[in-house]
């Protein structure tokens, strides 16, 4: 695996460059917020998951969402990735709504895809394609979405595999890898598209502590050495404290408190936050 310095050198994450590469409208180039949730509500049937959620994340900011299970954290990430539609409110990525066009009409599939291209997501269950090798998993999106040549995509994929310390697993299938290795491949697969916003959804929850460590090392590299905006859902409090610029505490579909890691972990204001941290840290 690369050191932080090598990592930084090998992966220059420049949002502007990525923006141009993806052909995103320049009007959003200098947006104040990388991602902005405005009065978002979400119901699954009669079950209310999010209630008038407001959350803004600056470009390059690393924000971690913590809170009890079922408090709506994962739904926030899924909404940002357009895997779910909100029941109400709006979500903007670099100033552009991912729901409506300027006339207030729902976005077409292609408009939605264009904006969504600025985001990448890593899932709890890795979600690698089981019938494809590691290399095929990595080159699928670059060759079909970014229209890179196979050779170019493979060369880039090898760089990313080196970055996550798995260059020797090029021809392995996901089932032949450990959970930690699969998750590192999943991170490489998300990063290879050069997202400006990376959404990490409980990426170590399915791993034992040892394997979780190697995955978190990779994310630390991304967090400390790149300009990518990170929105993280995790139960790893030490990791959250270390990599985050800001922590938002969720409870029952609302953000009950947010602030710097020091503030949240050392001087939480809400009783619910205190109770949650106590239960997690004593566990």
């Amino acid at each position, binding site marked *: 695996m690369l050191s932080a310095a090598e990592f930084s050198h090998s992966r220059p994450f420049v949002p502007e460059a990525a923006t141009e590469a993806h052909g995103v409208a320049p009007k959003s180039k200098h947006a104040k917020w990388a991602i902005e949730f405005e009065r978002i509500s979400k119901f699954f049937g009669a079950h209310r998951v999010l209630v008038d959620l407001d959350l803004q994340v600056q470009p390059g900011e690393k924000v971690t969402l913590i809170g009890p299970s079922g408090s709506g954290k994962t739904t926030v990430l899924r909404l940002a990735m357009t895997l779910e539609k909100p029941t109400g409110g709006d979500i903007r990525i670099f100033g552009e709504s991912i729901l409506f066009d300027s006339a207030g009409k729902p976005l077409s599939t292609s408009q939605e895809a264009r904006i969504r*291209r600025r985001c*990448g*997501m890593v899932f709890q269950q890795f*979600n690698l394609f089981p019938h494809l090798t590691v290399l095929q998993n990595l080159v699928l999106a670059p060759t*079909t*979405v970014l229209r890179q040549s196979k050779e170019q995509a493979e060369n880039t994929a090898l760089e990313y595999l080196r970055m996550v310390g798995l260059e020797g697993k090029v021809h392995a299938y996901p089932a032949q890898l450990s959970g930690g290795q699969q998750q590192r491949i999943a991170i490489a697969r*998300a990063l290879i598209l050069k997202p400006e916003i990376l959404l990490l959804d409980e990426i170590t929850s399915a791993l034992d502590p040892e394997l979780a460590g190697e995955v978190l090392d990779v994310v630390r590299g991304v967090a400390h050495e790149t300009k990518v905006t990170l929105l993280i859902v995790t139960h790893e409090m030490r990791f959250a404290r270390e990599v985050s610029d800001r922590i938002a505490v969720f409870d029952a579909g609302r953000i009950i408190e947010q602030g710097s890691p020091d503030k949240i972990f050392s001087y939480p204001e809400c009783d619910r936050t205190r109770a949650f941290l106590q239960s997690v840290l004593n566990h």
Partner: protein
Amino acid sequence: MTWDWSYAVEIVPNLMVGVWYTILVTLASSAIALIGGLLLAILEIASTRLGRTFVRFWLELARGVPILILLYFTFYVLPQLGITIPAIPIGIGVLGVVYAAYCSEVYRGSLITIPTELRDACVALNLSQYVTWQRVLVPLMIKRAVPALLNYVLGLFRETAMLFAIGVPVLMGEAQVAGNESFRFLEPFTLAGIIYMAMNLPFLYLLSRYKDKHA
């Protein structure tokens, strides 16, 4: 009734002609069934409500009407409407279409078993619908459906015997002709049964190899 070896040897060349037609019809109608079934499954899953209704109607028709009626209808009724199709294409077409309906249910069932998380990954990677189907869903569907599909191909192979009813010289048809000509039915039908069973063996071997590999 005694077994006549010399008669049995005499009819073998005719039965081999039947074997050739049986293989031809099986391969051609299997291709229609496997590809058509896949297209029907995709159409049903990915199309509008109208499209889905059309596909469902088509599937129920193909599965609900006995094959013999479909064969007779296309062979005897269509010419009265001015549409004359030779027996072999009719046999291939009817078996292919009926089994496409069965296969589409297999594909649909195997699609349901693909974790929705993989579709989420496709969205997160911004893969188009076409690439999602072509590179992810269809290969996984096929892989999961292979054992059940092989069973259907096996069933289709046996059903080719029915095509003798419209004069296609499949193995069963050749046995029937041989029997009718000599009024000896023991040898032709016994040999035909043994040959059908022997021709089953490669399918069964493939099926067990596949199951061993993916167990």
